[in-house]
């Protein structure tokens, strides 16, 4: 059993600010179904940029609920400019500490907040996604930017630490060298955070179609079909892949998560690492 402190338990057992805000002024989402966590943060912001209300919904473990709960308490009454400075470490400190393996829950809180701030300033989730396009850990879909920020904010020194904070490197472990390189860069020259970019594979469209179809068949369809759904490749334009979700998937509320957090990372892993996936309704 995880060693949660009393405050974490309290915030889990009696979560603050659970629920939905209709017509929220800012919404941010983070997490992934594959990892078993998903957080939706909704904010009400007045014309002076002051957060008057914050609510959350989460699918996640005890520390995810506690982290989200703490985060809402921390940001109500603050301005959007103030909260933009909040890091995952602030959430952990507010809770009086989290087990090291559970640090990624605070990171999820921070990411949802970041997304909400971007959303407030008019950046679409797609732009935000595009900003973070260098996925380092394919297993859990963790990007270089996410790793850089936890390494910097929490002064992390080992790959194991990064895994505890972001899950990156916890699966197939093939990205450990890249994570090590990021740690060295960040800790060595704090002002410069350049990361080795993975070489993009040059594929013809035909090769892409073939690879995508194979990936659908082997990696994606078995999961979708298990839930009564299916997927069809509609079009490819450069690195932009358009698909249509069928069956149960077409009416599933979590389809957009599946698309961005599962299908896209799989295609990046097996086809090409610059792919973006979009859905067209049948």
């Amino acid at each position, binding site marked *: 059993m*995880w060693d949660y402190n009393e405050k974490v338990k309290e915030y889990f057992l009696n979560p603050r600010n659970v629920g939905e805000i209709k017509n929220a002024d800012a919404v941010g989402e983070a997490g992934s179904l*594959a*990892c078993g966590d998903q*957080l939706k943060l909704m904010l009400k912001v007045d014309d002076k940029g002051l957060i008057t209300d914050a609510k959350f919904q989460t699918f*996640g473990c005890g520390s995810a609920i506690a982290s989200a709960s703490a985060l809402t308490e921390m940001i109500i009454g603050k301005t959007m400019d103030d909260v933009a400075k909040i890091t995952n470490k602030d959430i952990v400190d507010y809770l009086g500490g989290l087990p090291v393996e559970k640090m990624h829950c605070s990171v999820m809180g921070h990411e949802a907040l970041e997304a909400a701030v971007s959303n407030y300033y008019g950046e679409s989730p797609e732009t935000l996604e595009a900003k973070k396009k260098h996925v380092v850990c394919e297993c859990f879909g963790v990007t270089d930017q996410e790793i850089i920020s936890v390494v910097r904010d929490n002064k992390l020194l080992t790959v194991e630490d990064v895994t505890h904070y972001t899950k990156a490197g916890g699966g197939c472990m093939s990205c450990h060298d890249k994570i090590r390189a990021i740690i060295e860069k960040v800790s060595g020259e704090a002002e410069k955070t350049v990361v080795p970019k993975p070489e993009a594979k040059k594929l013809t469209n035909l090769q892409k179609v073939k690879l995508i179809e194979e990936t659908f068949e082997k990696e994606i369809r078995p999961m979708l079909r298990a839930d009564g759904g299916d997927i069809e490749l509609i079009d490819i334009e450069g690195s932009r892949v358009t698909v249509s979700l069928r069956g149960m998937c077409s009416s599933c509320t979590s389809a957009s998560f599946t698309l961005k957090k599962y299908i896209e990372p799989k295609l990046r892993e097996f086809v090409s690492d610059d792919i973006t996936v979009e859905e067209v309704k049948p």
Partner: protein
Amino acid sequence: MSQNVVYTDNNATTMVAPEVVEAMMPFFSQLYGNASSMHFFGGQIKKYVDDARGKVAALINADPAEIIFTSCGTESDNAAIRGILAAQPEKRHIITSRVEHPAVKNVFQHLGKNGYRVSEISVDRLGRIDLDELREKLDHETALVSIMWANNETGVIFPIQEIAELVKSRGAVFHTDAVQAAGKVSIDLHKTPVDLLSISGHKLHAPKGIGVLYLRKGVHCVPFMMGGHQESGRRAGTENVPYIVGLGRACELAHEFMSVEQREVARLRDLLESELTEKAIDASVNGDTEHRLPNTANISFKYIEGESILMLLSEVGIAASSGSACTSGSLEPSHVLRAMGIPFTRVHGSVRFSLSRYNTQDDMHFIVQHMLRIEKRLRDISPFGRDEINAH
């Protein structure tokens, strides 16, 4: 904890039966001799070890000479797999299933990185093994097949008779991890041509720290532990007499209670499952309910997360386990449920209730009452499946 405890995590470990504790006690005090000694004081101990060996053998209908005491199920698995491969170094292909316990899975993974060709047999949506795939994968290079008797997470029982016959017909050695099956379902090794079989004491109401490796007569297996001549030179190390005696008594009790347990424990399990699947917002049973251990229920609650469920169950004194990533210590969700193709939203929300003869009908009602409350509470927090709650 001073509150009432409802313990339904018996596939993780079991309570040591009071009869077992009683049987062990003299061997911590007056009967402390070394069974290998030449003098009367040690010599008198040997008959107790032999007696326990006979009781273990009787549970699986084996010859007492085929029973080797080890320190745990994991040791038995390691000793079996590595010992068989060391005895026939020229064969470099090994086969296992995708749903093994880490005590087998990780040994195979290690061997795969060290020159062995490893084949993993798939399971279907209900967790049933693909016998055709096994038939295809067996070849003249196959040294060993290791497939569990029953799965620890779902309780699904594999057709070991058929698997053992198939493997033997192809000239390979067959090992089965029967840690979850032993004591719960009937095992007859005169009838079933298994070569090696692992048992763990603490899964059948004996203490932790004692296990058994069954090694069929005539099967050559290089010893894992070398040293003294204990266990006929097959497992060195001074006999852990109190635990061996305890395990013997536990096997005797398991034998005695087996038919009652298969009926009674299964009745409680079925009650729990039917109540939960009928009354919950979205709960479904994982695994083949036709061929399953009588004590195991693996239930997925959609859109809620396992660790949160376990923490809230814990609050009211209910002990269970989950296939969620957050409860595993690693970050990956259950490899068993994933191998079955269960979607992530259900894997993370899976809860395993594993019963024993010490559970009661009141326990089941208590679990149902709290589980329904907990599901409702976590669904209210969850961003997924909002419409279904409103419809419920």
